[in-house]
C-alpha cells in the first residue's frame, strides 16, 4: 500500500511537472507542445554527457536546467513565433515535427540506449517496516516536484499573468496595446523548457530514459494538463499526482495490463462529469 502510494506519487510528480510545463507554454503561447518531453530529454542528455566527463553533480544539474531554458527559448524564437498568427494547427503540427526531429537527433547523437542521470543518492533506499523499501530518488522526485510546482505557481502570480493570457488569447491584439508578446512567450517557453528538463532529469535519476520514453510521458503530461483545464497550474499539478496514483492503484489492484487504459478511462469519466476539469470554469458569454 505504502509502496503503491510512493510509486504513484513519484510517477505522478513526473506527470504533474510535465503537465505544468505544457500549461505554462499554453498560457502565453497557446501552443499544445507535443515536443515537451523531447525538449526535456535533450537537456537531460546534455547533463548526462556532462556528468560523463566527471563534472560535479550539481554543475550537471545546473547545466541541464540551463539547457532546458535555452532549448525552449530557441524553439520559440526560431520556430513558433512567426506561426502564431496562423492559428493552432500549424503550431501543433510544428511541435509534432519538432518532436520527431528532436527524437531522431537524440538518437543520432546519443544513441537509443536508455540512460540514467547519476545522482549521489542513486540506488539508495530507505527500509521501512514490513519489507517495504522506498528509494531515495523517489523521495527526491516527490519533494522536488512539489517545490517546483509551488515555485512556478508563485512565479505566475506576478503581474505578467494577465498579459500572458492576453497574448495567448490574441497575440496580435496584445501587441497592439503594447504587450511585449515576444518577451512573454520567450519567458513561457524558457520556463516550460526548464520544467521539462527538470522532469526528465528526475525521471532519469530514479528510472531510465531513452528516445522511447517521451511517448508515454507526453500523453500523461497532456492528461494532467487537461485535468487542470490547460489553465490552472494547481489543477494540473494535482491532476498529475492523482493520475499517477490512479494508474498505480489500477495496476496493483486491478491489472497492470489495463493500467494505462483504465487510468485514461477514469480521466474520461472525470471529463464527462466535470467538463472543465478540476478547476472552476470560466464561462464565456458567446452571444
Amino acid at each position, binding site marked *: 500500500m505504502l509502496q503503491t502510494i510512493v510509486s504513484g506519487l513519484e510517477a505522478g510528480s513526473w506527470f504533474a511537472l510535465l503537465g505544468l510545463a505544457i500549461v505554462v507554454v499554453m498560457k502565453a503561447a497557446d501552443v*499544445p507542445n507535443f515536443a515537451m518531453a523531447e525538449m526535456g530529454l535533450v537537456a537531460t542528455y546534455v547533463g548526462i554527457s556532462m556528468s560523463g566527463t566527471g563534472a560535479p553533480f550539481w554543475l550537471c544539474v545546473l547545466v541541464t536546467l540551463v539547457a532546458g531554458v535555452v532549448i525552449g527559448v530557441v524553439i520559440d524564437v526560431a520556430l513558433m513565433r512567426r506561426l502564431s498568427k496562423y492559428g493552432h*494547427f*500549424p503550431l501543433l*503540427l510544428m511541435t509534432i515535427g519538432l518532436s520527431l*526531429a528532436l527524437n531522431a537527433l537524440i538518437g543520432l547523437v546519443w544513441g537509443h540506449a536508455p540512460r540514467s542521470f547519476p545522482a549521489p543518492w542513486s540506488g539508495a533506499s530507505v527500509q521501512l517496516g514490513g519489507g517495504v523499501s522506498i528509494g531515495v530518488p523517489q523521495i527526491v522526485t516527490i519533494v522536488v516536484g512539489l517545490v517546483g510546482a509551488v515555485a512556478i505557481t508563485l512565479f505566475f502570480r506576478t503581474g505578467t499573468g494577465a498579459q500572458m493570457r492576453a497574448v495567448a*488569447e490574441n497575440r496580435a491584439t496584445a*501587441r497592439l496595446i503594447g504587450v511585449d508578446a515576444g518577451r512573454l512567450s520567450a519567458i513561457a517557453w524558457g520556463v516550460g523548457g526548464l520544467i521539462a528538463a527538470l522532469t526528465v532529469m528526475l525521471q532519469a535519476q530514479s528510472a531510465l530514459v531513452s528516445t522511447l520514453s517521451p511517448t508515454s510521458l507526453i500523453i500523461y503530461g497532456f492528461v494532467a494538463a*487537461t485535468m487542470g483545464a490547460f489553465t490552472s497550474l494547481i489543477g494540473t499539478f494535482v491532476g498529475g499526482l492523482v493520475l499517477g496514483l490512479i494508474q498505480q492503484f489500477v495496476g496493483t489492484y486491478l491489472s497492470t495490463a489495463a493500467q494505462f487504459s483504465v487510468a485514461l478511462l477514469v480521466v474520461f469519466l472525470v471529463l464527462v462529469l466535470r467538463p472543465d476539469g478540476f478547476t472552476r470554469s470560466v464561462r464565456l458569454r*458567446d452571444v
Partner: protein
Amino acid sequence: MSETTRETETTETAVPPAAPVVGTAAIGAGISANAGASSAAQRGSALRKGIVAVAALVLLFAVPFVANAYLVFVVGLTLVYAVSTLGFNLLVGWSGQIGLAHAAMFAVGAYGSAVGIAHGIPFIVTIPLAGIGAALLAVVIGAPAIRLRGFFLAIATLALGMAIVELITFAAPITGGGAGMSVEVFTLPGITGSASTYFVILVVAAIMFFLVRRALIGRFGRTLQAVRDLGQLSGSLGVSPLRYRLVAFGLSGFIAAVAGTLYAQLQTFIFPAMFQMNLLVPMLVMVFVGGAGSLWGPLVGAAFAVVLIELFQDLGDQQAIAYGVLLMVVIAVLPGGLTSLWRTVRDSRLGARLRRAR
C-alpha cells in the same frame, strides 16, 4: 488550445493584421481552419475537374500493369491512408473536433474485416459491415464526447481509443491478442494477389473520395463548417450543432474502418500495437500536412507521409531526422498545409504581380 481561449479567439486569417475579423470563429475545437480551400477556391469548370479526375483514375488504374509489386504496394498504402485521412479530416478539419480515436476505428475496421473473413464472410461484404460497426461505435464514443471541446475532447477520445485497442488485445481468442492474426487475402479471379488487393483499394478509394467530396462541397460541408466556426451559435441557423458533431463522428468512424479493412488486406497480418500512438501521430500529420479542412489534402498528406519515407530510405539512420525537419519546413513555409500552396501563391504580392503581367 485551452478551452477558454478557444471560445473567444478572434480568428486570425492567413492575412497578418490583427483583424478582429469574424467573431468567435473557433468555438468548436479551436480550429481556425486555415485551409478551408473548400469553397472560394473550388470554382472552375466542372468538366475540367471531371477530366482531371478521370485521367488520375486511369493513371492509378494502370499502376499494377507498369510497376512492380513494391510500387503497387506503396501506391496502395498511400490510397488506404488517404481514405483514412479523408475521414479524419472530416472530423478534425471540417467539423472542428480533435477526436483521437481514429487509429482505433481504423483498427476496428482491420480486425472487423479479418475476423469476419475468418468466420466465412466474404471480404467485400466485410467492408460495409466493418464500416457500419465502427460508425456505431464512433457514435457511442461521440455521444458523451461531443459536449467536450478542444483538448478535453482530444484526451477523452484518446482514452476511449486506447481502451478499444486494449480490448482487441484482451479478446485474444478471436483476435489472436497481442501476437496478432493473419488476414486471408481476397483475390479477384484471374489476378495475382497484390494487384487484386490494389484494384479493390483503388475502387473503394475512388468511391469514398467521390462521395465525401460530394458531401463536403455542398450543404453538408457548409453546415459542418458553420458548426465548427460558430459552435452553438450555429443553432440560430437552424442547425443542431451536437447532431452534426455526432454525425461527423459516425462518418469519420465509418471511413476509418473502411480504410482499416483495406489496410488489413495490404498488411496480411495485423496486431494491436500497430494501431496505437505510432499510427495516430502520422495520421494527424497527414491531415495537417495535406491541409486541414481541404478536399484533396488527405491524398496529398498521405502521399507525403508514405512516399517521403520510401524516398528517404537511402539516408539510413538519418532518415528520421530528415523527415522531422522536412515536416517542420513544410509547416513553416505553408502553415495551411501543402494544398494551400496554390492559394498562398495566388494571394501573394508575387501572384498579384504575375496576374497583372498576364
